[in-house]
């Protein structure tokens, strides 16, 4: 179905157009276009046409324009012909076909107006307002948006009938796990009601007026970054938006011409718009511009019109639950009770048990629950999860145990970091005030484990220990299991297993990308290990993770097998024929877009550098993470550049064909600290010495080749003695 087909039938009788709506959209379009023109020409007078322009932290220039017409705008003067083209496509005849083009023009106008705001220094915003959302944020949450882990995207602009109503809508959407973009006074309404909004909650308060475009340029970047759709392929980008971005717009409160015109921009992208205003028929377009004054009905109707079906279960806990709260930090001052983190003894353990040793659904709390302790208490904690399942394997214990982190953090007011006997948990005062108990923590874990792994898990029982003696006793048992698991992990090597696993999870948005996950090479997102893939295969045998029987190798050193090539060819839709798993330089693995880190060669140093999603600064290859991501994402093989998971650096199979660890000449300080202990061990094992990590340059040494080479030479970095990379 072509993009234009989806609007067919909205206007039953072309001679009977919703004139009143269309006239206002037309008026709003004129206002937006002229306003953009006035600002642009004043800016040209002030800065000249050669002035460099752009948003911060993006490799996609002005994403709306990059996407829709392919111009990679970097200079002010380049905007003139673009704006003129958009002015020129505005036809006065009032019909829905013309209106969508007006909507497109308004998207351009808003992008230009906001670009000029950045040029003028009118941005950035103060917290929690975001303004433009940089690529790191798009990459952090964008995957979940396009793979539908986040079930949908709600764009709310205007002002709800009152603040409580705004809160109700947003709480409801957050509970369902929606990504939310907010513009205008709905933001103040939510702040008034102390609703948690901001980058940490995937609920972005963009700003006012034309700042709504930052929702659009966020969405459009998904097609570029994850969809692998080349810049300028307007119809393909629209199609991608319609198919992958399950967004709708709620335009609340009194309407104005510019908001109506912007709404038509959303409709141009394939997103329906609903308003709480009572509108006559000539102010509506069936399925596209809809009046629903009932606040109880407007969100369900939006889901229905956009075709969003929710599958998640309702949890019987007194706090909100969803990915919106995943990034929530609970500061010390907001903490009601705290466990672990070196302050008290704590552990968490998933263990497989037999059918006779488990009471399904039971949560037992040993010791006094948190309603009996005063604020500020630090308690010991043991979380023991017993699982029975006909398809359960001991290998999956660790897989499920790591899910505790995600499930716990989805709870509003529950904060969890680290794992095993290092885990650290905080419960906020707010959560406690709402009645949250550790019993609910158990309920939450049971519900989510059963919801996500129904094929493996038949019964779950949780024991929460808050009593020191019980925790001490449990810890002994837990440490035994950890040791056994570690031994097993050490025995899992690429050589020792029969099967590798594929991961095609990202093909929903990067259609030609194929990950091959081996015991010693974690998926580039860092989230799918060989065991994860194996468990996932058990859960859905026809799912994205398929076993690839390894068979004989073609090239042991570079890591090429007949079987992996064969699989790759088919799975990449016949676009890629061969792949090497152990090298960066020759037919390397492709990258989808969700990589945690990127490696790139630094020929001057005969080595390679690594930068991470978290590091926004410049790097010695002359590109930031964002720019690098733009060059190697989208399922292409790009020798010399590759997306990886952070922990791949610790693998014995870290690019052995290229010389392994010794090649690393630069990485951000933060990554060094993150990996330090294990990295040092690996360096010793590789004969590079315990101080190798300190021979690697970082941003404190410099961010250019010129700055780091003297450092590498002084410190006797081994890179110069290695075989030439090129």
């Amino acid at each position: 179905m072509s993009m234009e087909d989806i609007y067919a039938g909205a206007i039953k009788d072309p001679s009977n157009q919703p004139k009143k709506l269309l006239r206002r959209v037309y008026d709003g379009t004129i206002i937006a276009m002229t306003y953009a023109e006035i600002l642009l020409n004043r800016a040209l007078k002030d800065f000249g046409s050669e002035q460099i322009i752009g948003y911060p932290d993006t490799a996609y220039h002005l994403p709306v324009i990059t996407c829709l017409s392919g111009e990679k705008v970097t200079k002010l003067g380049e905007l003139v012909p673009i704006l003129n083209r958009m002015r020129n496509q505005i036809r006065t005849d009032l019909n829905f076909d013309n209106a969508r083009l007006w909507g497109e023009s308004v998207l351009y106008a808003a992008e230009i107006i906001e670009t000029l705001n950045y040029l003028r220094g009118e941005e950035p915003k103060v917290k929690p307002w975001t303004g433009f959302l940089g690529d790191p944020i798009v990459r952090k949450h964008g995957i979940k948006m396009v793979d539908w882990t986040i079930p949908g995207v709600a764009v709310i602009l205007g002002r709800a009938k009152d603040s409580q109503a705004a809160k109700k809508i947003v709480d409801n959407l957050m509970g369902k796990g929606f990504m939310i973009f907010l513009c205008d006074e709905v933001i103040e309404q939510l702040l008034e009601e102390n609703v948690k909004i901001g980058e940490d909650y995937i609920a972005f308060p963009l700003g006012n007026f034309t700042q709504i475009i930052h929702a659009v340029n966020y969405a459009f970047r998904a097609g570029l970054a994850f969809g692998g759709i080349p810049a300028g392929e307007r119809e393909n980008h629209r199609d991608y938006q319609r198919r992958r971005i399950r967004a709708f717009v709620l335009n609340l409160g009194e309407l104005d011409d510019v908001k109506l015109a912007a709404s038509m921009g959303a409709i141009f992208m394939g997103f329906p718009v609903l308003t709480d205003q009572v509108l006559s028929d000539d102010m509506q377009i069936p399925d596209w511009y809809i009046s629903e004054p009932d606040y109880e009905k407007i969100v369900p109707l939006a889901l229905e019109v956009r075709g969003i079906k929710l599958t998640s279960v309702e949890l019987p806990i007194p706090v909100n639950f969803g990915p919106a709260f995943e990034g929530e930090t609970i500061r010390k001052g907001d903490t009601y009770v705290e466990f672990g983190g070196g302050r008290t003894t704590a552990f968490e353990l998933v263990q497989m048990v037999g059918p006779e040793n488990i009471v399904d659904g039971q949560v037992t709390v040993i010791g006094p629950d948190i309603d009996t302790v005063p604020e500020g208490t630090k308690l010991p904690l043991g979380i023991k999860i017993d699982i029975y399942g006909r398809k359960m394997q001991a290998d999956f214990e660790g897989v499920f145990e790591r899910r505790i982190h995600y499930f716990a953090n989805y709870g509003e007011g529950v904060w969890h970091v680290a794992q095993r006997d290092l885990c650290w948990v905080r419960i906020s005062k707010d959560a406690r005030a709402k009645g949250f108990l550790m019993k609910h923590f158990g309920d939450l874990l049971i519900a989510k484990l059963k919801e996500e792994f129904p094929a493996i898990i038949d019964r779950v029982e949780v024991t929460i220990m808050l009593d020191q003696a019980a925790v001490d006793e449990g810890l002994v048992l837990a440490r035994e299991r950890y040791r056994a698991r570690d031994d097993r992990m050490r025995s899992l090597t690429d050589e020792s297993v029969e099967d590798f696993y594929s991961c095609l999870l990202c093909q929903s948005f990067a259609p030609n990308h194929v990950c091959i996950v081996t015991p010693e090479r974690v998926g580039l997102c860092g989230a799918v290990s060989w065991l994860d893939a194996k468990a996932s295969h058990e859960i859905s045998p026809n799912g994205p993770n398929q076993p690839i029987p390894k068979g004989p190798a073609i090239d042991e050193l570079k890591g090429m097998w007949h079987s992996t090539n064969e699989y790759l060819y088919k799975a990449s839709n016949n676009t890629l024929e061969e792949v090497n798993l152990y090298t960066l330089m020759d037919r390397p693995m492709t990258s989808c877009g969700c990589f945690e880190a990127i490696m790139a060669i630094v020929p001057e140093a005969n080595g390679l550098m690594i930068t991470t999603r978290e590091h926004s600064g410049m790097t010695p290859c002359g590109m930031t993470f964002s720019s690098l991501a733009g060059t190697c994402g989208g399922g292409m093989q790009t020798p010399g550049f590759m997306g990886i998971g952070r922990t791949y650096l610790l693998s014995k199979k870290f690019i052995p064909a290229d010389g392994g660890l010794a090649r690393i000449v630069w990485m951000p300080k933060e990554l060094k600290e993150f990996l330090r202990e294990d990295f040092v061990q690996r360096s010793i094992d590789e004969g590079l010495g315990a101080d190798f990590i300190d021979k690697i340059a970082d941003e404190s040494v410099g961010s250019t080749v010129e700055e780091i080479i003297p450092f590498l030479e002084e410190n006797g970095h081994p890179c110069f003695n290695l075989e030439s990379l090129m």
Partner: protein
Amino acid sequence: MPRYRDLTHTARPSDAPRVVDPKNPIRTTDPGALQMLKLIEERNIETVYDRVVAQQPQCAFGYKGICCRICIAGPCRVKKEDGPGSRGICGASAFTIVSRNLVRYIAGGTASHSEHARHILHTAHALVEGHADDYEIKSPAKLMKLAQDLGVATLDREEKEVLKDVVEIGYSDFGRYQDRPLAFLDAFLTEGRRRKFHHTNIMPRAIDGTVTELLAQTAMGVDSDPVNIIFGGLKAALADLGGEYIGTTLSDVLFGIPEPIVSEANLGVINPKMVNIAVHGHNPVLSEMVVAAARKMKAEAEKVGAEGINIVGICCTGNELLMREGVYLATSSASQEMAIMTGALDAMVVDIQCIYPSVQTVAECFHTKVVTTEAIMKIPGAQHIAFNTETAMEDAKKLIAIAIEAYKHRDPKKVSIPSERHKLVAGFSVEALTEIFSKINPDRPISVLTDAIQSGQIKGVALMAGCNNLKRLQDESHITVLKELVKNDVFVIATGCSSGAFAKFGLMSPLAVDTYAGEGLKSFIQTLEAANPELSTGLPLVFHVGSCVDNSRGIDLAMAMANELGVDVPKVPFVASAPEAMHEKAVAIGSWAVTMGLPVHVGSMPPVEGSDLVYGVTTQIAHDVFGGNFIFEVDPVLGAQKLLNALEYRTWKLKIHQKTAEKNSTAIAQGW
């Protein structure tokens, strides 16, 4: 656009009738004017009230702004929604026609205010050159402050030298061709406004150039883009504000900064035993001289049997003299004819603006002499004495002599003066208000006002301004809006004929505080009074800040509050209202007030309803771009409620932004 808590308050006006009681010629609520109409009932003199009735129904095309008379191929009207009838002969559609008509009002208003400014500049220039011996620098302090604002050196310099430089800058502001901002505007703006006007390309560089450019822009066959036309209009509106700044600041330099002063108002101030001279119009340059001359010529008046000379003011000339000299205010704009109908007015000396041509027709029924004084303002049948700054006192004396001569011909049978007169306190320049506040907080005087708003004691500040418009009864809307606002604890300042209405009704008196102010406002005013025991006048219910050019004082107060709060004007709980707007000047003032970031209520519908685009830009989108917006509402009670809603909206948002900044330890958000 702003969206208010009360969901019934949208950008659309209510269904209230646009012309109240169209057949009723008793179109005033002013008790003085009503008494007057009663007193002369049998005389059958045609007044403005009769002519309003005679004009009904008024042209609906003109009313909506869709009648185009810019070229003589017209007049063209927008008759239909679609097709050839939806456009003028040249193809101009409704939004082009409405926006062109609208901004041409602004051009007219700006030309008017700047004419006033030009006159003051010429006077100051003559003073510097030594050709205006009758004038002096009455407030050197204001001159020095002004010079500093404008970047003129003051150290070790003679006052006249400094004034010379200031005047030169003022002259440059009329004719500058370089792309530099108007100095008399730029110097006073907040940083936020300065940037906004520059970025949106509406910062004027010269007053005359901007008006001329706007006429050229809106000529037949030039601009047809309504948004571009409106931005041209806003530039002219800002030039109008520049002109007002020149007028206000230099008037203060030459005639003194107003200070609290007691006076009286309404027709009862006309004294049957004295030679009565009404000064009417807008310009203090002449009228200040008339006041001075009258003091010198008391003896001449006594010679003809009068007890002395009684100067009374009408309209904004009246306001200028009331503010600085405590001269009685006889009446305001729509009842100007009534002053003559007392039969005791010996001369009406007029300068410019808002003078009904009919004053001469009415004067013909009496002994009253109408005298025009300006080269651009003459009335057939009226005498003309050309007023020159060089010979100011001499000219003023000639005017007084005409009145004394006329007094001899006064017909006692025709004398019927209404008894209505009310005490008032006026003279509240921003300097005077600041002085009062400083008794509570000497370091940050304006915080006295902003703290009272943030604590909820008062709801905000309203600037009430503007004319009379007889589509509703005279003064009814001014009075109703005021009563609603003060009842709800709004601190009200007023200018122009809005002030005139309050003065005439006795609402500008300290006595009115008890009767009309809400508890919060009452306690606020009491706190101010308690801190200022030396102020023997007491403080009024509503604070008179001056004539219509002195709306510049109003925006000065708003900007001082913005700076105090660390935000730009659009976030300040400050609104403006012109309940009975009439003149082109009002359109210019309202437009710059919106551009400056204020919600502006207008109680008489301007001709914008013929284009939804123009209506939407003025009432909704203006807020998104500039932070201010028009509120068109002809029902005064609803108008006041909408103003209260607008204040609530701002206080609410400001509070949330402050709380959020505190919580996140950031600067306060600058969005609005």
